[in-house]
């Protein structure tokens, strides 16, 4: 037995020795090496080599995390060993990292070094800021468009969506596709999915009132948005129920299913951004039969779609935070944006490089008209707002839970959203009661001292609807609510 253990230990030592002996060590060449917490997609290689050309004394390597899971980032930042540059996928994650004291306030450097919010698209500027301070700069921008697969429409003999598509038109198209597919004994999903956030923005709704003290989930716009999702799913059959999705899918995860349904001619339409086009070479003939238009709009309102940005911030505890600022200079440069154009990885951060659809033409999608549609989606694009009085990750979680209740017919849209707003406001009250810093913020926001009965003194405002088109009159739910 002793001999066996000695043999096994010798084998382990030998393998360990080989592994150690074949490691490459960074040369002592005076170059500062920093880490960038991002997803390790192949485009990073070109992006990082271009950065090194621009800043020869700096080198950045990719430090992969696990998709949206922030455990690695939190553990490393909590022990002072986090990466210098951090990709932040949405403004909710940004708020969490600011609260945790991880992100550097970029405001004192941004203007002078050339990466202040004015260097990017207007519609994402507010997502880079919290309380008027800038914490990140875009790596790319994701808008939402309605893409349609002309092969499916032609096969089923249904006309394409118009350039000014409304929800009424979408429902008619969806029904026609279902009918035609049924007649041909085919299984086709009219629209891969349309989540509550997309619908909320399209309906001019928001998460919070401007002061962040009251939730707007119980506004008529929000309830109409959730009702629309319910109707699209259960009444009109335009988007799949979870059961239907499971029967046509073998793969889990966000986006994965929808992409392959659409690309594989099993879904006629999908809501997605320009980044999808990189998938086109995998599906021969699809680029030529692709249609792109804006998101459907609610009659009475402008066409409004969500916009998000994957943007980089700097770890304030990194020993190289000053050097890392140069990475943001690089992200704001036309050279970086040209790489994003060529790779099809969303809309580039610099508007100077993307003024027309022709500027965005690349090998994946050489059609300038379609590229223009992606660019048009940045107009009137909005994002959901945040509240400083509640942890925004929690709000997100509660909201998806409410969507689940409606999808599964456990609650009506009005009931789910009223409960959601009540729960959020209850938690805001709890936070205010426990945290003196929030009471101080309350005083700054409202101009009055916090007290337990403040809700009696500051009643909930009537929600202001965004994007109204006066020439089209009231919206359908306003008409329904009229006496």
């Amino acid at each position, binding site marked *: 037995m002793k001999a066996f253990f000695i043999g096994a230990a010798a084998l382990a030592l030998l393998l360990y020795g080989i592994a150690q002996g074949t490691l490459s060590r960074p040369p002592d060449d005076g170059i500062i090496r920093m880490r960038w917490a991002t997803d390790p997609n*192949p485009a990073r290689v070109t992006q990082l080599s271009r950065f090194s050309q621009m800043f020869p004394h700096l080198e950045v390597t990719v430090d992969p995390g696990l998709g949206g899971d922030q455990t690695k980032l939190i*553990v*490393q930042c909590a022990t002072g060993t986090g990466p210098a540059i951090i990709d932040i996928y949405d403004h909710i994650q940004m708020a969490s990292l600011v609260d945790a004291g991880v992100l550097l306030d970029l405001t004192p450097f941004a203007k002078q070094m050339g990466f202040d919010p004015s260097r990017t698209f207007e519609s994402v500027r507010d997502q880079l800021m919290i309380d008027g301070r800038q914490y990140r700069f875009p790596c790319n921008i994701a808008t939402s468009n309605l893409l349609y697969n002309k092969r499916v429409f032609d096969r089923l003999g249904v006309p394409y969506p118009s350039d000014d598509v409304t929800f009424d038109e979408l429902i008619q198209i969806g029904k026609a596709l279902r009918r035609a597919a049924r007649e041909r004994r085919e299984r086709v999903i009219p629209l891969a999915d349309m989540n509550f956030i997309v619908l909320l923005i399209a309906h001019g709704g928001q998460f919070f009132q401007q002061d962040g003290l009251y939730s707007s989930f119980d506004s008529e716009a929000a309830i109409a948005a959730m009702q629309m999702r319910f109707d699209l799913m259960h009444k009109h059959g335009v988007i799949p129920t979870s059961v239907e999705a499971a029967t046509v899918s*073998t793969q889990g995860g966000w986006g994965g299913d929808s992409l392959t349904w659409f690309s*594989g001619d099993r879904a006629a339409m999908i809501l997605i951004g320009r980044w999808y086009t990189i998938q086109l070479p995998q599906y021969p003939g699809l680029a030529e039969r692709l249609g792109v238009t804006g998101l459907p709009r609610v009659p009475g309102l402008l066409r409004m779609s969500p916009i998000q940005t994957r943007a980089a911030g700097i770890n304030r505890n990194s020993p190289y935070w000053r050097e890392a600022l140069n990475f943001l200079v690089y992200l704001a440069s036309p050279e970086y944006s040209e790489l994003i154009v060529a790779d099809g990885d969303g809309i580039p951060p610099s508007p100077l490089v993307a003024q027309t659809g022709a500027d965005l033409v690349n090998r994946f999608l050489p059609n300038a008209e379609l590229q223009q549609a992606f660019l048009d989606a940045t107009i009137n694009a909005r994002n959901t707002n945040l509240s400083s009085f509640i942890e925004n990750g929690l709000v997100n979680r509660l909201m998806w839970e409410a969507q689940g209740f409606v999808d599964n017919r456990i609650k009506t849209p009005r009931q789910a959203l009223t409960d959601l707003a009540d729960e959020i406001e209850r938690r805001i009250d709890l936070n205010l009661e426990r945290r003196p810093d929030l009471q101080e913020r309350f005083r700054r926001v409202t101009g009055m001292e916090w007290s337990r009965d403040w809700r009696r003194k500051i009643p909930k405002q009537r929600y202001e609807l965004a994007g109204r088109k006066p020439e089209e009159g009231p919206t359908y739910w306003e008409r329904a609510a009229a006496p």
Partner: protein
Amino acid sequence: MKRGTKLDVLRFVMLVIVGIAMLVPFVWMVSASFKTRAEVEDVRIVPQRPTIQNYPIVLDMKPDPVTGKYLGLRFGRWYFNSVMIATCVTVLQVLTSAMAAFAFARLRWKWRDKVFILYIATMMIPGVVTMIPNFQIMVTLQFLNTYHGLIIPAAFSAFGTFLLRQFMLSIPPALDEAARIDGARSGTIFWDVILPLARPGLVALAILTFLGTYQSFYWPLIMLNQDQFYPMGVGLLALDSTYGRQTELIMAATVMNIVPMIMVFAIFQKHLVKGLQLGGVKG
């Protein structure tokens, strides 16, 4: 048909159904690794246009058709790292667990059973709770981005100690007493009497440790920032980026990744079952 035979048939049918249910995901994984991107979402098990191109793409012998670029995956290195780390952890963990189990099962010392209860109580603490303190210790020891940062924390196991202690308790105490009468000291008893008799337990623990370490993901993900240290699980993250999930490539890589695990299990499965059964005899 006799009642017993009917029951046997029913039992057989049930087992076949359970077996198929367990086998289908594996078959799907292998089949998806031979599908194209356009086909990978298809529920059909047999690929309509089978292709082997996913394997050379993962092995960096062909460019990814989506980007036209080589993926730059260091598959060979990650494979070697996984096997090396699993081997080192297995050798160390079996040795330390056997020594601890011997102390808890065969030696008499004050507060032995209380210390044992305390030791196995550590199994009740979720890993997430101790992640930051453990990581901080690794940072202090400068173990970040090193192989020993992955090997040393895994070299000690309360579960392994528990398993082998139960095993050693089932060995008759008369054997050590006879050895002691013959002048053997504790070290000799451990190496020459107890360990040979505890072989099934050692093999079972070795298999479980090797498989567990080979598949470990979260700790290496947090501990490592350089791709030359990655084990296979962390390296495969490269196929799940914002460009989209490349399912067919992930499946091809996974098929290649699980070969050592299947081999280890196939060779040692008898020992595993026997070791676990015998370890459960005495409490």
